[in-house]
């Protein structure tokens, strides 16, 4: 090269430099691999600790007798399983129709071409609310449930209060996931149906909802997981009675709540661990279902 500036200027990039860069890269990648290992180890540490110390306690008696209270945490977890089930049914029974219905209105009606200005405005307001609440810690929903249902409406610490508070907790996410599922349905599906003379509602019911089904189902299953894991909301609305609930106005404790009471207020650490094992297994099953559903969703394109 005949440019004086470039002649012989050379870079430090001799073979040694390349080797140094290679070494640096190997070092850095080793650290990145380590981060992957840390994630696995963290999971294994938690899961193995809980499983090793809890699996021994699990037998049919543990699963099918109710706790008897007391400082030694006697009894099993039967009533807490039942209470958890009740609460899952209650919260989802309230939040799912409300959330999916609202989502259908927002996606299919309010954003229509002939949609009125008011409804467009409404969607914006709702979206702001949903976005805001989605990031709010659950204890704040607990506060709300406590003051409205437990205290003001005199439902007391009960399944009803907890179910309503839990429904409020998952409502924002229900709306959002349902909206997203509806939005993934191609416009052409709707147009094809409408072009065949179907009414709007027939189109939604027969075409849009089935197509959005796996997406909505995924959202519902995720919410089941959330209700099972949730503790803070129920801690301040459900009371904590270890008896089998006899009506909507009875108090109770979910498995997660039971684990908390066992760990904090009794000496029955092994039973807390056993309850943890049941919880972890439930969550694994839920994850597998979600995986199956999203695989189905992805396969459909």
């Amino acid at each position, binding site marked *: *090269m*005949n440019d004086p500036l470039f002649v012989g*200027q050379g*870079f430090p*990039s001799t*073979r040694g*430099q390349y080797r*140094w860069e290679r070494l640096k890269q190997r070092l850095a990648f080793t650290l990145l691999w380590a981060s992957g290992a840390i994630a696995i180890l963290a999971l294994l540490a938690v899961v193995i600790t809980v499983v090793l110390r809890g699996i021994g306690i699990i037998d049919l008696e543990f699963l099918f007798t109710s706790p008897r209270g007391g400082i030694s945490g006697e009894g099993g977890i039967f009533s807490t399983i039942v209470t958890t089930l009740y609460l899952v049914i209650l919260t989802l029974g309230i939040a799912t129709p409300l959330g999916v219905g609202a989502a259908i209105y927002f996606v299919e009606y309010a954003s229509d071409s002939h949609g009125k200005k008011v409804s467009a405005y409404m969607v914006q307001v709702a979206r702001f609310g949903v976005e805001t609440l989605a990031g709010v810690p659950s204890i704040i929903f607990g506060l709300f449930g406590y003051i409205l249902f437990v205290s003001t409406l005199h439902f007391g610490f009960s399944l009803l209060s907890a179910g309503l508070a839990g429904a409020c907790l998952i409502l924002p996410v229900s709306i959002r996931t349902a909206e997203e599922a509806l939005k993934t349905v191609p416009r052409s599906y709707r147009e094809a149906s409408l072009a065949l003379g179907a009414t709007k509602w027939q189109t939604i019911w027969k075409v849009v909802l089935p197509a959005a089904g796996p997406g909505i189902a995924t959202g519902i299953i995720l919410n089941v997981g959330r209700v099972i894991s949730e503790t803070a909301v129920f801690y301040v609305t459900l009371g904590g009675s270890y008896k089998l609930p006899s009506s909507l106005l009875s108090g109770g404790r979910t498995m997660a709540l039971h684990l908390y009471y066992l760990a904090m207020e009794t000496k029955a650490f092994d039973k807390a661990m056993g309850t943890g094992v049941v919880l972890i297994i439930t969550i694994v099953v839920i994850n597998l279902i979600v995986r199956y559903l999203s695989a189905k969703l992805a396969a459909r394109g």
Partner: protein
Amino acid sequence: MGQIKLEMVHYSLYYGNFCALRDISIQIPARQVTAIIGPSGCGKSSFLRTFNRMNDLISNARVEGRVFLDGQDIWEMDVVELRRRVGMVFQKPNPFPKSIFDNVAYGPRAHGLRDRSRLEEIVEQSLRRAALWDEVKDDLNKSALTLSGGQQQRLCIARALAVEPEVILMDEPASALDPIATLRIEALIRELRENYTIVIVTHNMQQAARVSDYTAFFFTDESRTGMLIEYGETKQIFTSPRDRRTEDYITGRFG
């Protein structure tokens, strides 16, 4: 033909079972502009990306035959060194989301240069060579993404020049630019020819005729496998092509 800079011997490229290029042998002269023309999908880009081993990034790519830079097998060289010596300018201008200065200094820094005043020298020199200095000398700290498309492409050329390459590969460098910016890039290519070996892929035959000394014509059949049909001095290819398909292509009968 003078000194040979790049050479391929019976080179074939496969992506999985698909053969993208078959049995290509070619010698590319130093300090000349060699244009690669041919219809789209005939493997021009894959051919070009062989010389700096960018095809290595594709997980199922596989090669046969040999490729040499100054007589040295490129698969026996350190890939980092190879890519420093063989620079590349892409179809779509791709400046990093950094300042103009940092874009040009990126390569030298990657190769271990830390000295600020040396970096400043290299940045200025590279921008001058890419005919961009006068337009940006007061805005070196501005984001490169604020430049126009043509300026961004010249910045990418400056960025490639900053690591003192010997070869510059250009993959349709003007296809995303307007006619005036295109002419500026072409003028720049003619200037760079003094010091660098340039291989340029283009779908624009006038451009190939204007800027290049040698031209290689690639073609493909239904199998979509790219083949080198004809290679020679640009004047000869455009005035008296030996192959029927070359003639059909440059007279605009297909492609």
